[in-house]
């Protein structure tokens, strides 16, 4: 089971990072969603993998599973869900206002700036 969970987390992270580095918003959003799945599974696994064990110490069971990572995952899921919603709306607004869904802004399209030569590093994260 360890191998399955570990490779699952690894593959999802790799796919997420690859999509995150694309130049258009849609793959980037999918990449972020994949990354958040990967990180949720990872957080869950930090409490060690245990099957059929209660999350409390009980005399009738022969062990327990750590409840704290489950609480952490719950928080992380809520936050990443909200953030995905925010970025979907934001990407739509940006697409409608700017007429393109490219994440990179180094195209001299900033009004009020004569040139974007000084911003060469700006789009580095997404380009």
């Amino acid at each position, binding site marked *: 089971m360890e191998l399955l969970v570990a490779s699952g987390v690894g593959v999802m992270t790799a796919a997420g990072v690859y999509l995150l580095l694309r130049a258009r918003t849609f793959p980037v959003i999918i990449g972020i969603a994949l990354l958040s799945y990967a990180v949720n599974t990872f957080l869950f696994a930090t409490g060690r993998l245990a099957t059929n064990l209660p999350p409390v110490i009980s005399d009738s069971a022969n062990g327990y599973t750590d409840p704290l990572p489950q609480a952490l995952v719950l928080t992380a899921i809520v936050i*990443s869900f909200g953030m995905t919603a925010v970025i979907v709306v934001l990407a739509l607004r940006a697409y409608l206002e700017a007429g393109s869904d490219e994440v990179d802004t180094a195209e001299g*399209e900033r009004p009020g700036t004569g040139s974007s030569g000084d911003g060469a590093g700006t789009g580095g994260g997404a380009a």
Partner: protein
Amino acid sequence: MNHWIIVPIVLPALLAPFIVLTMRHDLLLQRVFSMAGAVALLAVALGLTAQAASGPAQLYELGNWRAPFGIVLVLDRLSALMVLLTSLLSVVVAIYAITSAWDTRGRHFHALFQFQLMGINGAFLTGDIFNLFVFFEVLLIASYGLMLHGGGAARMKAGVQYVVVNLAGSTLFLIAVGTIYGVTGTLNMADLAVKVPQIPAGDQALLRVGALLLLVVFAVKAALVPIHFWLPGTYANAPAPVAALFAVMTKVGAYSILRFFTLVFGDAAGDNAWLAADWLLPAALVTLIVGAAGVLGAKELSRLVCFSVVGSMGTLLTAIALFTPAATVAALFYMIHSTFATAALFLLADQISDRRGGAGGRLTTAPRFAQTGLLASLFFLAAIAMAGMPPMTGFLGKLMVLDSARSSDSMATIWTIILVTSLVSIVGFARAGSVIFWKSASLPDPVETAPSRPALPIAAASLMLAAMVGLAIFANPVTGYLETAAAELYSPTHYIRTVLGPEVVAEQR
């Protein structure tokens, strides 16, 4: 238990939904309540700082749960100072946003502003690493809203980048926290400080990975090279009062590095002691160079200010990376100064761009505008403060950083880079100032009809300059306070005993 400790979090947390729910149609009421909230926050922060200055660190146990099991807030000199700095800045930003009518350009400015304050204060006060993540998210989510305030295509695009970078950062934060929890079984920072020296040799590598990932996350917030690239685009496109408020957001990253890596990976951590220093110092020095190069190369005023922020973060993190009490005193002093200087410059840049009509903030000549003389002198003051020339506090701050670097092995490198980049920044600021104010003044057709503008926003920006003068005058008591704060950081036994109780420390050590 001293319930005042949680007020800087609870007050804006209650005020923000109250503003949204009951007064979303009445801007005047929003302004009154937001301003009153900021002033009340300042009063509370002053009280807390006075308490922190006169006594040892105080603990606040949420829900009365004992420390490693429940979440705790800790008020010591450093966190009190950061809360005070935030609330001072928030008052100025609120005045500016209201008087310059920035808050009318979109909805819910004041509610988001309060949420932002809640997140920042929470990040400074918490003693739990996962809770730090939650407060990071609170301040980030509010900052997304604030950064996009007013809309517009350019701002939206810059906003998408900002959100994506920070979502990736949050993912890394979770991975780091998960790794550290997996190895140590605790998330409380004081408890981590106790557990880290006891980690078996087989888990050391995993622990280092977790800690260094955390350093990367904090470095994203602090705009450290090579993950600084989001800052110029974001801050240059953010509304001016928001950019000024963001001056303290980069400091959240610096604070977290200082807090986490002195407490958990300090002298007591054995093989892992001062884990961050080897990585932080070179990155900080490169940050300084990139910042100075950007200041020299910028073609637009707000971008120039952005790169000067990157440069100042480089200076600050260089001082932090030395990890000695004297260097930390210098770092904290420089941090206070650079927060004020950044805010003043962003607000002045907005006033100048606003008056130049079509030319905006571009560094080209343009017809004279209203109040040129006043703005020119204020810009001059703010620029020499940022570049680190006497008589402003930037000079004192940089002098302290240089002085504290004398005992370091890499003193020659640090001195050379700080001094050369200061010179380059001076040239960059001088070029910008001379194009905007002098060359423009010599244009043949001055427009006499340049309309006069309200002076209150300029007064708000001048408040930041006045704060710097105040800091320079009271430099001695301030450094006295900072010296005690730094001493607390480098002998964390007291902090740990406050959080975990004396018997726990005695039993585990």
